[in-house]
């Protein structure tokens, strides 16, 4: 199970990851970004906990 981070841990991740890709985040936007980061990483946890076979690959052009 992927751990869902605390707001402080999410905040630290947001600050570092944004710096890594050169994305400035204004102080007034930071709380909202952290909030949505929590939402999307909550969804990510559902994805990451699910076991998938090693040989499964996504199709580069997806054909339904």
């Amino acid at each position, binding site marked *: 199970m992927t751990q869902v981070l605390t707001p402080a841990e999410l905040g630290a991740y947001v600050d570092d990851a944004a710096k890594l890709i050169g994305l400035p985040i204004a102080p007034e936007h930071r709380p909202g970004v952290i909030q949505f980061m929590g939402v999307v990483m909550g*969804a*990510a946890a559902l994805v990451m906990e699910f076991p998938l076979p090693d040989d499964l690959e996504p199709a580069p052009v997806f054909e339904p």
Partner: protein
Amino acid sequence: MSPVEYTAADGVGLAAAVRAGRVSAREVTDAALARIATRGPAVNAFTTVLAAQARADADRVDAALAARRDPGPLAGVPFAVKDLFDIAGVTTLAGSKINAERPPATRDAAAVAALRRAGAVLLGALNMDEYAYGFTTENSHYGPTRNPHDPTRVAGGSSGGSGAAVGAGLVPLTLGSDTNGSVRVPAALCGVFGLKPTYGRVSRAGSTLFAGSFDHVGAIGRSIRDVTAALDCLQGPDPEDPVCSPRAAEPCSPVLGEGIDGLRIAVLDGHFARGGEPEAFAAVAAVAAALGVSRRVTIREAHRARAAAMVITASEGAAVHLEDLKTRARDFDPLTRDRFLAGALVPGVVYQQAQRFRAWYRARVAEVFREVDVLLAPTTPCPAPRIGQDRMVLAGVEVLTRPNLGVYTQPLSFIGLPVLSVPVTRPGALPLGVQIIAAPFREAYVLRVGALLEAKGVAAAAVTA
């Protein structure tokens, strides 16, 4: 053409009247422009009205008829498009302030061109959530689009202008795009028909992408035959869209009356049968009863599919707008900005696992379609929420309003299935939709089911007076 005659007709009916010479395309266009002028401001559906161009197009249709040339199957049908389809000579806003600085488009998007070639008359561009990232069309730059049935409520989104324009009787046919439910949700909340064809069935060339893995072009209309006629004009290969299928077009209008004999139909259980208000499930039950369906089937891990769709959407959406996010984040709509910024920070391995999960889930759903042909599910978990409503209660639990409108649509567009949202007849109540779902490239199945429901009166567009 009187206002009453105009708003009573569907698109195919108007085309038949024009082709038979009972009314001119110019008269129909003038009726549409009059309706947009009188009723349009209350719903705020249009961002651009193209009166002069529309009249010129209508005159060309009338000239073709006078010269005994075929003006096309949609002769004189007024239509409008979500403001992310390029229109030659108009700047494509995609609901943003940023894109208003861009030059006008130099040619029509493929879907716009296809409908105009068929004789339809383009009336303008329609409001949407900024860059299509939303389910409510509460656009901070251009104002919220209002629900035709209750102006205090949202029209749904992100193709909210497309839903409201049909529901308010401004035009009988519109184009939208659907990434996670953006055609089906506004169609359901505005009480009209919404068709999201199979991923790759219709070219997206000339439209603004949001999350390319899931972006579809779709149609919203006031009758089954309207959305079917639109699909038949739109579908087919296009080398200008890298994901457009090489599969040949399969016209659906000729098979609409074939009924449902031989189709195995079931109601979706599990994720699609919980977490919504009772009236959403009652709408599905009414459709199932009309079709004589009692079977129920489950798609495994649909809730996880929704989560994976959310991850991929956040990541792909942010990548498209990364440069603007870096240099001018303040110019984004406050309702999308923080989500776009966070999406840029989704780790690569999470995105990749979500795409791998998608391949797994697609295979599981294909197994379901070996047993059944058509599935039924609610479109939204509730009728239209109020504008500005951040939270709502679903099945006794308080949740965020905006993301949860797509709870039943996201797991289906995630793997590109064709889905029709039909407006369920609910006199005196706010509109609700039911999704009719089939295996990839089986648009004909969902449209045949929809046609039967419409013929029985179980599904009908609710267009306001």
